[in-house]
């Protein structure tokens, strides 16, 4: 799975060639995303024309399902993979543009609550996952990767930690596969639980942002519930992502000491390298929207551009999820991840329900 995530191309290859290689996959993302939107609209039109009350299944779910169907039946040919990997790029561009739908006051209020919950969630998750990994006899570095991945930010945190702690590729591949498999399950389970508990959009969005590991899945899990929940999920996940540098730095120092290697010399530079820059872009666009830099129609245009970017992301989530590949990775890391995820989902649900009285 890891190979489908990283965009790795030799430096010597010229820009034009690299750009051309992205085109087939980009078209596939657009086609699958648009097919999802088309199916949603077609069902709505059919229901209206025949005076039927059909369930409103959002384009998000259709795009993911169509992607899953392609990936797990005919498969995604190699030709499409470089362009497919750009779904992470569209996710980040979409998050920055989503800043236009937040007044800075909301960002500070919700983001503040999110950050407080994030600190609790990360601390408990790291301790729990480390203990669980040890109890299940996983290799220490694989345990560290799973702990980082499930407490902060899924795949990005694992990739960041891989270099920082000197983990081997096999461990990284295990941890990424486990986190992605669990993210795919959470995508469908979270909305069901949210509806079952009758959670408000804000509470559910916070829970999805805190409980689902990978940013793309957290965004999709939020959007599957409602548009408003999707917004809050992105904000909560962004607050969680902002912590990535601190946790990875902590692990880098821990493993350097343990293995008697030279530790991180310039901690500020290390933190800056690991800090997700799209968080700053999101705050900038939100600040501009708050300062009335954009008119109301312009804000509507930015919100729609963000939706288009997310459409490509959701298509990518489905297309890169290959169940057969995940099954090859073995049961134990998945089991540790699964037990951890259920515990973290329970913890974050409790935290969110407790915090709900402060964020109304």
């Amino acid at each position, binding site marked *: 799975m890891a190979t489908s995530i*990283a*965009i790795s191309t030799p430096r010597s290859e010229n820009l034009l060639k690299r750009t051309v290689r992205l085109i087939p996959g980009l078209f596939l993302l657009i086609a699958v995303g648009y097919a999802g939107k088309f199916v949603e609209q077609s069902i709505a039109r059919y229901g209206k024309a025949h005076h039927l009350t059909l369930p409103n299944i959002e384009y998000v779910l259709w795009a993911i399902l169509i992607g899953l169907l392609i990936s797990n039946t005919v498969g995604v040919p190699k030709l499409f993979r470089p362009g497919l990997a750009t779904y992470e790029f569209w996710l980040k*561009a979409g998050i920055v543009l989503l800043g236009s739908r937040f007044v800075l006051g909301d960002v500070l209020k919700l983001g503040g609550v999110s950050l407080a919950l994030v600190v609790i969630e990360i601390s408990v998750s790291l301790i729990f996952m480390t203990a669980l990994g040890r109890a299940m006899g996983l290799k220490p570095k694989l345990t560290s990767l799973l702990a980082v991945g499930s407490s902060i930010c899924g795949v990005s945190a694992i990739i960041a930690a*891989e270099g920082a702690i000197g983990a081997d590729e096999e461990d990284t591949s295990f941890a990424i596969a486990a986190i992605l498999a669990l993210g795919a399950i959470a995508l469908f389970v979270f909305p069901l639980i949210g509806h079952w508990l009758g959670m408000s959009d804000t509470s559910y969005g916070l829970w999805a942002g805190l409980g689902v590991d990978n940013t793309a899945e957290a965004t999709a899990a939020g959007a599957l519930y409602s548009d408003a929940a999707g917004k809050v999920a992105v904000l909560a996940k962004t607050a969680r992502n902002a912590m990535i540098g601190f946790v*990875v730095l902590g692990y880098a120092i821990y493993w350097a000491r343990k293995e008697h290697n030279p530790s991180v010399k310039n901690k500020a530079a290390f933190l800056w*390298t690991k800090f997700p820059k799209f968080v700053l*872009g999101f705050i900038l666009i939100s600040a501009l929207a708050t300062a009335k830099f954009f008119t109301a129609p312009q804000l509507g*245009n930015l919100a729609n551009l963000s939706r288009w970017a997310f459409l490509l992301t959701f298509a990518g989530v489905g297309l890169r999820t290959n169940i057969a590949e995940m099954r090859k990775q073995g049961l134990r890391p998945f089991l540790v991840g699964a037990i951890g995820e259920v515990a973290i989902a329970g913890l974050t649900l409790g935290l969110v329900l407790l915090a709900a009285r402060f964020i109304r």
Partner: protein
Amino acid sequence: MTETNEGSSQPRKASLRISLDGWAVALAIAVSLLVWLGWIKHVPW
């Protein structure tokens, strides 16, 4: 998220390469500017 895959505890040679994150932010800001300037007038959904 692949923006952070340059991570290593060992310092690397200084480089001007922009991360995936950086490009995504640059694109979003550029598009916002085009919307603000009125070059992009209507984005349907």
